[in-house]
């Protein structure tokens, strides 16, 4: 089941928590595993320098989907999505020195996952302010 | 014995690294040892049917006995760092005189017969069958190496081509290709007691003559005792010191030092030779046999100290190997070495170099010297390779450089070193060491002396140096022959004790 450690008796592997929403990543999992940093970096430059604000490769969106249900973050605990892989691969990233590791603010929807708005409840349940049904409907349309 | 015509290299300002000229020294071969010589040594004198098997067997035998050989044959990465370090390459441009190429002559064969890739893909790893041509190359080029170890200083793994050369010569001996010069000498030293084949009585005559000369010269009755039971010091010196010029001047120097210091000493007719050509052939047993004569003499005469005269490879064998071979030294706890240690005086290093001895005496004020006696000379010092890179003097590493220089500077006022990269552990061989001091190899000797001559030439030009001191009998003999070829006076070379002899005050 999603989120449970894939640790078997044999070779150790990282815990990769299933994304909270959606069935599929913005690209094939295979590609994401190899090249997510390329997408992120490319998108980063476009956003910051040119002001292009598409959602597909936005870091905020990654976090929205991949934040752990337990910690609400992608990098707060050692089994959280980004961290578990990165400590396994010993690749340091400094993204979260600046970027919040938690979904926050306007949870924009993802083009591929329009129908998965139910996920909002999970986060909304933890949020300070309740999200009204109308509001949600407004966002999802 | 007319030596082949050849051009003496021209001396430039710097020692230049030449472009390679393949095969330029393939013709230089020393004479093969004839039957009687080989017989005495217990080697065949010609190739037998099964020479190849014999060679490979011997090689396997040596590989099992010498870690140096095994590691060196494996470890070389062909980095090329040593390629411009050998004086024979610098002087002859023959690429097979580059240390690594010299090793490769054997390494090719080693790879072919002893390593998996060489057995499977000989071309790939440069492995070659052992053929008569290879053997001839061995004979040529293992007798164009003076075993000076200069290459070993610069190799990142310390690969010492001398070790390969020695092994190569040993294998050559075993298939019947001994070198006449070395093997003859080895015969003489074992039969007669010294390399020159000077029998006991002749030696005594010579020494008496020298005593007379000294007295005539100085008015002091300095003695040159031989075979004196119970003397304190046994002096073992190269036999060339007894009558070759300029060697003999140093012998007079030693005598004066002992006299002035009041140390009783003796030579030995049984061990009237410090040199040990067994080293050159890489045969442990022969080297041991030759060295054992010293032990025997020491025991027989009951001396307390053993001092070695001015000879490079003799000092290497004495300093580095005597303890191993004969127990002259300390730290052994087997009956064999204890026997000797009981007799020797533990207050002195055993064996001791004559320079250590003289320098100590001067420093302690036990003998007096007047350096101005050498004011006509501007001196430089040639570090002999075996002293520089294979042994030590004094207590500190590098004492072999410091002590002779200290000694020279206490007996002579004008001293200048040659260029840094040509002295100390980087010293260039005189060109005649390692069993090459034969007229058959004159071309090799002259060309190989080029780097040293260049360095000398520079100090001559700059500081008007007119005397090159050294502490090796081979260097002295070689330079007296070679200096004139480069336009220098042959009397420019001499021993350190030649200077001492001039400066020492006798009473």
């Amino acid at each position, binding site marked *: 089941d999603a989120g449970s450690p894939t640790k078997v008796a044999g070779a150790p592997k990282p815990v990769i928590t299933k994304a909270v929403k959606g069935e599929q990543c913005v690209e094939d999992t295979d590609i994401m595993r190899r090249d997510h940093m390329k997408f992120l970096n490319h998108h980063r430059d476009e956003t910051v320098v040119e002001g292009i604000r598409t959602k597909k490769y936005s870091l905020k969106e990654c976090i929205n989907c991949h934040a752990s249900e337990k910690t609400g973050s992608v990098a707060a605990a050692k089994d959280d999505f980004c961290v578990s892989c990165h400590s396994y691969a010993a690749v340091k990233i*400094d993204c979260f020195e600046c970027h919040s590791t938690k979904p926050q603010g306007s949870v924009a929807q993802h083009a591929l996952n329009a129908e998965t708005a139910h996920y909002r409840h999970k986060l909304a349940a933890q949020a300070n302010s309740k999200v009204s049904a109308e509001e949600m409907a407004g966002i999802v349309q | 014995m007319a030596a082949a015509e050849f051009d003496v290299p021209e001396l430039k300002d*710097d020692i230049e690294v030449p472009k390679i000229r393949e095969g330029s020294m393939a013709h230089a071969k020393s004479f093969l040892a004839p039957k009687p010589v080989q017989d005495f040594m217990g080697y065949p004198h010609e190739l037998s049917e099964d020479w190849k098997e014999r060679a490979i067997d011997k090689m396997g035998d040596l590989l099992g006995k010498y870690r140096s050989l095994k590691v060196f044959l494996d470890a070389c990465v062909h980095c090329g760092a040593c390629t411009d370090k050998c004086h024979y390459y610098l002087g002859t441009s023959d690429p097979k005189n580059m240390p690594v190429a010299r090793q490769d002559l054997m390494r090719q064969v080693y790879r072919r017969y002893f390593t998996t890739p060489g057995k499977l893909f000989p071309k790939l790893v440069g492995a070659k069958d052992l053929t008569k041509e290879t053997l001839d190359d061995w004979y040529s080029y293992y007798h164009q190496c003076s075993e000076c170890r200069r290459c070993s200083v610069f190799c990142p793994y310390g690969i010492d081509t001398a070790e390969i050369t020695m092994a190569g010569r040993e294998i050559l001996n075993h298939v019947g290709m001994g070198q006449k010069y070395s093997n003859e000498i080895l015969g003489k030293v074992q039969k007669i007691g010294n390399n020159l084949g000077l029998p006991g009585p002749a030696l005594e005559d010579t020494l008496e003559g020298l005593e007379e000369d000294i007295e005539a010269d100085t008015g002091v009755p300095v003695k040159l005792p031989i075979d004196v039971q119970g003397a304190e010091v046994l002096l073992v010196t190269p036999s060339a010191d007894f009558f070759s010029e300029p060697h003999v001047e140093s012998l007079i120097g030693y005598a004066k030092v002992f006299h002035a210091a009041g140390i009783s000493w003796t030579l030995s007719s049984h061990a009237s030779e410090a040199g040990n050509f067994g080293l050159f052939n890489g045969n442990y047993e022969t080297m041991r046999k030759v060295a054992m004569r010293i032990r025997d003499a020491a025991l027989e005469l009951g001396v307390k100290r053993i001092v070695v005269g001015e000879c490079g490879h003799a000092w290497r064998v004495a300093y580095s190997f005597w303890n191993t071979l004969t127990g002259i030294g300390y730290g052994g706890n087997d009956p064999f070495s204890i026997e000797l240690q009981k007799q020797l005086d533990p207050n002195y290093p055993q064996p001791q170099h004559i320079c250590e001895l003289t320098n100590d005496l001067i420093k302690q004020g036990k003998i007096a010297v007047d350096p101005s006696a050498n004011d006509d000379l501007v001196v430089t010092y040639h570090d002999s390779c075996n002293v520089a890179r294979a042994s030590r003097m004094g207590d500190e590493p590098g004492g072999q450089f410091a002590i002779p220089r200290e000694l020279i500077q206490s007996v002579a006022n004008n001293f200048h*070193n040659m*260029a*840094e990269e040509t002295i100390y552990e980087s010293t260039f061989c005189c060109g005649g060491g390692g069993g090459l001091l034969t007229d058959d190899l004159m071309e090799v000797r002259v060309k190989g002396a080029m780097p040293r001559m260049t360095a000398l030439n520079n100090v001559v030009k*700059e500081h008007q140096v007119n005397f090159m001191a050294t502490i090796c009998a081979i260097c002295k003999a070689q330079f007296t022959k070679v200096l004139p070829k480069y336009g220098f006076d042959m009397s420019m070379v001499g021993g350190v004790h030649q200077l001492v002899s001039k400066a020492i005050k006798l009473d």
Partner: protein
Amino acid sequence: MASITFREVEGSSLKYWLLLGGLGLFVLFGALSWNYMHHHGHVVSGMDNQIVWGLPHVFAVFLIVAASGALNVASIASVFNKPLYKPLAPLSAILALALMLGGLLVLVLDLGRSDRLIVAMTNFNFKSMFTWNVFLYSGFFALVGVYLWTMLDRNVKTYSKTAGTAAFIWRLLLTTGTGSLFGFLVARELYGSAMLAPMFIIMSFAYGLAIYLMVLVAAYAWSGRTLGDAVMMRLKSLLAVFVAAVLYFVVVHHLTNLYFTKYHAVEAFILRDGGIFTTLFWVGQIVIGGVVPLVILLSGLGRQRAWILVACALVILGGVAQMYVTIIGAQAYPLDMFPGLDETSSFFDGEIHAYAPSVPEFFLGLGGVAIALLVTTFAVKVLRLLPASLDDATVAKLEH
């Protein structure tokens, strides 16, 4: 032709290892300081949003300026073909490299994101003086490196003069660049001057030579080699000229500023009202770094080696003071956005900013100095940089 033998220092004595160890210790302190500042952020430093460049920059800029000056001796040898300086040239080149390395390390380690060095090396803004400096610095390493090579390897000796000249021109550009780093800061009143670049060049001559002299004397004294008076006297006269020139430039700089009314306030700050900065200016920069050394060098005292060294040390101290005044003084004086009006805000507008360097900053700076000396100490052991002897007789031969 007389030739000089260069020889590595023995470098096996206890003294040598103690020296190396001592310097190593300071390098270690520097590293720890960096680690501390990097881990906690600049919050643990004395720097803030008003004084943004602190003590590390003082050290770094001083070292960089001195680096280009240290090359001076070599330049005189090969560019101006003065044989006396030839044997002194290799040390000069290595010292230049070492000081530059020390300075750059301090500069780089003081970055807010020193972990992003790779960014600095792959992203360039060619309008920035800083970027140009990055190239000037790497070029300096390359050129001086090549120059040093031509001095050490006789196969390429013939190119020595070309390399030397290239290095010389480059280092003039480099110091101009370092000076312009400040000169281009239109916002800061103390910097708005074209004098800054030439002034930095002449300062570099003085600092570099002072350091060179101290290192030379130390190296010869500690390795037991002879260093004749001929060399010392020649170099000390040169130093006197440079120190005097620096003084001259400083005077002219402030006088021109005083000519323009708009600079009166800031000049008054430095020259009269600036507290620590005024003290550093008059006592540190002018008296200790200029007047006293000049007196020493030009009077009879200048014939004694110990006094020459004292003068060198003072020049160096004065130089650091000068950098402090130039770099930190200029920031301490508030930006004047609304001329004629008093400004107050939560952001300390209109106030004179105080700066108290923290211990890690100090040790980071010293770490740079230690690296420079460590590299030099090690280099003279492994490379043939120092003539075996520089006694008067040897030197005299060179002159002919």
